[in-house]
C-alpha cells in the first residue's frame, strides 16, 4: 500500500472541498476501500474520513423514511422504523456480509462498494474495470459469480450489494450533494451498466458526496421477502438474490416490486415481471410466469449457466415467501 494522507472532515463543506481534488477519496467504514488499497487496486493520495459528520440519522418524513449515509448497516437492519416500514431492507442488510462487517459498513459505502470479480482484485490479471483497455479476465475465465443480464463485451461483473437490491425494489432515492447542490437519483438509476466504460460503476459525479437515501412509504411491509442463495449459510456473496415485495388485497396482487442481485452490474429491477403480476392471484402460477418473463434476455457464460435455472426458481421462491405461502 502506498503512503497516503488521512484527514477527518469536520463538516460537509470540508468533505466536499477535499474530494474536489483528484486523488482524494472518501473513507467511511473502510471495509471495502481498505481491502482495495491493500491489494493495490486503488491508491488514493488522501483519504477523507467522513464518519464524524452528522449523517447517521434514521427518521420518518412526510412521505417516507430517510436514512443518513453514515447509518451503519447493522443499525439500519435493527432500527424499529425500518423494521416496521421497510422490513425488506432489513432482511437484505442482514443477508449481507457478517455482523462484524455490518457493524462498520455504512449506507453510502455499501452503495459504492466495488465488484468482487477476482480479476478486478488481482493486479496481475487483465481487467477493464481496474485498468481500461487491458481486457476482461472473467469473460473467458472463472465467471461463476458473473452477470447474466446487461453485461457488455468489456465487462461482465456484478454489483455485489444486497442492500441496494432491497433499495432498488423499494423505489428508494439516493440523495447526493456536490458543488452544484443536491441531486436525487433513483436507486435503480444510481448504478450503471458496464457498456464501454466499466471503470465507472455508477452515476455519482466526481466530487459528489452521498448524504442519504429516502424510501417512499408503501404497502409492502406485510408481504415482502429477501431471498439470498449462496454457497454457505452466511458470509458469502449472492449467487442470485431476489427482493420481492407484494401488495396483496383479496388474494389479488395490487402492486409488485422485484429486483435481483448477483445477476448484473447493478441491482436488476424486473419491471416487466412486476407488471405481469398486477391483478393476478398470488399463486405459484402467477409467480412462475413472472419469473419466466424476468429471464428474457438472460445470457450466461461458461461457469454461470446455472444462474439461468437458479434465477427463475429463486424469483418464484421469493414471491412465495413474500405472499406468505411458505
Amino acid at each position: 500500500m502506498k503512503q497516503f494522507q488521512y484527514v477527518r472532515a469536520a463538516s460537509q463543506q470540508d468533505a466536499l472541498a477535499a474530494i474536489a481534488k483528484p486523488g482524494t477519496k472518501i473513507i467511511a467504514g473502510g471495509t471495502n476501500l481498505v481491502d482495495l488499497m491493500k491489494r493495490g487496486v486503488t491508491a488514493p493520495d488522501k483519504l477523507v474520513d467522513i464518519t464524524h459528520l452528522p449523517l447517521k440519522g434514521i427518521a420518518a418524513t412526510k412521505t417516507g423514511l430517510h436514512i443518513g449515509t453514515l447509518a451503519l448497516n447493522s443499525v439500519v437492519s435493527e432500527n424499529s422504523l425500518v423494521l416496521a416500514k421497510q422490513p425488506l431492507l432489513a432482511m437484505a442488510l442482514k443477508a449481507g456480509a457478517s455482523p462484524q462487517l455490518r457493524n462498520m459498513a455504512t449506507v453510502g459505502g455499501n452503495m459504492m462498494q466495488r465488484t468482487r470479480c477476482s480479476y478486478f482484485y488481482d493486479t496481475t490479471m487483465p481487467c477493464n474495470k481496474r485498468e481500461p483497455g487491458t481486457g476482461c479476465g472473467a469473460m473467458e475465465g472463472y465467471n461463476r459469480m458473473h452477470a447474466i443480464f446487461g453485461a457488455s463485451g468489456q465487462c461482465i461483473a456484478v454489483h455485489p450489494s444486497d442492500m441496494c437490491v432491497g433499495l432498488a425494489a423499494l423505489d428508494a432515492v439516493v440523495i447526493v450533494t456536490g458543488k452544484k447542490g443536491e441531486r436525487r437519483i433513483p436507486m435503480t438509476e444510481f448504478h450503471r451498466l458496464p457498456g464501454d466504460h466499466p471503470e465507472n460503476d455508477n452515476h455519482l459525479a466526481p466530487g459528489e458526496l452521498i448524504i442519504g437515501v429516502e424510501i417512499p412509504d408503501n404497502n409492502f411491509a406485510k408481504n415482502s421477502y429477501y431471498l439470498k442463495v449462496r454457497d454457505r449459510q452466511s458470509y458469502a456473496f449472492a449467487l442470485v438474490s431476489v427482493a420481492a415485495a407484494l401488495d396483496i388485497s383479496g388474494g389479488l396482487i395490487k402492486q409488485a416490486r422485484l429486483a435481483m442481485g448477483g445477476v448484473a452490474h447493478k441491482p436488476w429491477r424486473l419491471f416487466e415481471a412486476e407488471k405481469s403480476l398486477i391483478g393476478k392471484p398470488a399463486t405459484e402460477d402467477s409467480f412462475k410466469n413472472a419469473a419466466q418473463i424476468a429471464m428474457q434476455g438472460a445470457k450466461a457464460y461458461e461457469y454461470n449457466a446455472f444462474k439461468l435455472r437458479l434465477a427463475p426458481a429463486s424469483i418464484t421462491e421469493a414471491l412465495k415467501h413474500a405472499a406468505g405461502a411458505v
Partner: protein
Amino acid sequence: MESKTMKTPSVPEGMSRVDGRMKVTGRAKYSAEYAVKGLTYAVMVGSTIAKGTLKAVDTKKAEGAPGILAVLTYFNAPKVPGYQGDTPPPKGPLRLFYDDQIYFNGQPIAIVVADTFERALFAASLVSATYVKGDHQTDLKANLANGITTRKDYLRGQDDAYKTAAVKIEQEYTLPTEVHNPTELHATIARWDADDKLSVWTKSQGVMASQRNIAQAFKLEPTNVRVTSPFVGGAFGAALRTWPHEIAAVLAAQVVKKPVKLVLGRADMFTAVGYRPQCWQKISLGASADGKLTSIVHEAAGQTSAYENFTEGVVNISQLMYACPNVITRYKIIPLNVNTPTPMRGPGEATGAYALESAMDELSYALNIDPIELRLRNYADTDPDSGKPYSSKYLNEAYKLGADWIGWDKRSQKPGSVTENGWLAGYGMGAGMFGAYRSNATVKAIMMADGSLELQTAVTDIGPGTGTAMATIASEVMGIPGDKIRITIGDSSLPPSPTQGGSSVTSTVGSAVNDACKELIEKFKQLDSTATGNLDYVKLLRDHNLTQLDVTTTSKGGPDMAKYAMYSWSVHFIKVLVNPATGVVKIDKAVSVADCGRVVSHKTARSQIIGGTIMGIGMALMEEAVIDHRYGRLVNNNFADYHVPIQADIPQSEALFVNKTDPYINPIGAKGMGEIATIGVAAAVANAVYNATGKRVRELPITPDKVV
C-alpha cells in the same frame, strides 16, 4: 438450540484444556508474537507466472524505499549451504533462490526485509520481474494421461472378478484442491545467536523435525538450532514440514544480521505451505445379488508439483475397509505447475473414503439394501490385506450408536420422498479408518517440593489438546489433581518427541507420560520401601531433604504392533435438508462415532471429533481452490472467496465414542482419532444429499448450482 448429549456413560468428562484460559485471554504466545529484541520484518514476493525462467528481478525501487535493509533474490542471495554440493535429485523440495526456474504461480522470487512490517510490505509491492514464459499445465483433468506411478499397483485375488459380478457400480468422483487454512498464519522468527547458533520460533507440528531440517539447510549442528513452537493455532498438516519461507527467514536474518520475522499473508497460505491435492477417482464395485462384495477396483490420480513427487494413501482404504476377496487399486500422480501438496487431516484416506463410501452408497441403492446392512454384510473381522487379527475393532457398535442418534429409522430407502417444511430431507452415512500408530517418545517427569508435577517433552500441541491429555494421564497415574500439573512442550531442547501428525501423539506421548509417571512412583517407593497406597510426594521429598525428584523415560512401541492390524474406525451420520427450488443444502444434524480405543479425555476428544466433522462438511459442501488455467493462477485465495464452514453451516452435531480399550497398541489403550474424524464425512453428506433429492453429485463441493 436443543442439545442431546448421549455421552457413553463410561467416558470420563475429563479436565478442561490446560491451556484454554491462556488461549482465550491472549496469553498463549504464538510464533509471530515473540517480542524478540531488534526484530526486522520480511515479506516475500511471489512469481506472477506458473512456469518459465526468471530473467531479471528489478529491485531498485524497493531498495530505495524507506527502511529497507535488504532485497534478496536468486540473483543476489547467498546460497543456502545445505542446497549446495548435493547432487540435486530429479525431484525434491523447492529450494529457495537455488535456480532461475519458475515451477508455479506465486513461487517466492524475492524477500524484502525492512525495519517495519508495513515498509517491507510496501517495498515488496515495488519489486517486479521479467520472465521467459514456459507452457504451464495446471489442469488435472486435461493431464490425466500424464501420470507417474510411484506406488505399486495392488492386486488381491482375481483381476477379472468385476466382469462377472451380478450387480455393478462404476463411477468417477472428483475432489478439488482444498487448503488447510488454519486460523493462525504461518510465521517464523529467526535469530542468529552466533555464527553457528540459531534460535527459531516457528509454526511447526514437530520442533525436532524443524530443527533437523533447518540445521541441515544451514549446515549447523542440530543441537545449535533451537526451535520453539509451544502454541500452534491449528495446522491440520500444513506445518508438517519445513517450508521455503522458514528457510527464507533464517537466510534473511543471516544477511541483515538482525532477527527477522516473516508472517505469511492469507493469500500466501494457498501457495507457500501445501494443501490437499485435487484428485480424480474411479471406483468399480461388483457384488452378488445378496450384497456381498466380489470386486473392488479403485483408481486414483492426484496432483503433485512439477518439482516434487507427493503421494498419499488415497486408494488404501479400498484394500482395507471391506472383506472383499478381489481388489485392484491403481494410484498415480500428475505433476502440474503448482506448489507441492502436503498431508491435510485424514490425508489420502479422506479423499479415498469419499469415493469408496459414495460408491458403497450407490451400490446399496442398486441392491435395495440399507447402507448400514450392506456394510455389515461386508464387515471385515480380520485385516483383509494381511489376514492379521485386529488389535481392536468395534465399528459395528459405532454404526449402531450413530444410527440411533441420528434417527436412521426415519430414513426412506426411496430418494426424494421425504419433505420437512418444504425442504427435502435425507440421511446419509459414511465410514472411515486410519492406521493406529505408536512411535518413540521421551518424557521427563519432575515432582517438585510443593507437590506439583512438571512434564517435559518436545511435542507440539496443534490444537487437539495433547497437553491436556498428558495432564489427564499423569493425574490418573500419579493420583494428583490436574491443576497441579504443568506441561512444558513445543521446544526442541526438551526430551525428544515425534511430530504431531498421523493421529499418533496421544498413543505415543501419552504412553511415555504413563511410563514416566509409573517410573517416578517407583523411584518414590525406593525412597521409602514401607510406603503403600497413595504416596505423599511432598512428605517423601521433605523427609529425604530433596527439592525435587525426576525421571526421564523413553517409551517405545511394543512387540504386539507386528502381530495385530491396528486401526481406528469411524462412522458419520448426516441428515440434510435441501431446498428443492434453490438447491441449497443445509446440514440438519451430524454425528460422528469413533472407535478409537479408550478415550483419555472426553472434552478434548469431543471437540477434536466435532472439528473433524466440520472439516468434512466443508470438504463436502464448499471448499475448493480454483485456478484459472490460462494463467495457472488461483482466483479465490482469500477468505471471502474460499469458503470454509461458518457457525450457521454447522447445526446440532455430536461426537460419540465406543470407548473400548485397545489391549495391544500401548499401555493406555488409546488409538488415534484426529484423522478418522474427517475420513468418511464428505461421503456421508453426499449420500444424504442423494437420499434427499435423488441427485448424485460426484464432483465436490456440492454447491447449490450442482443441485438445483
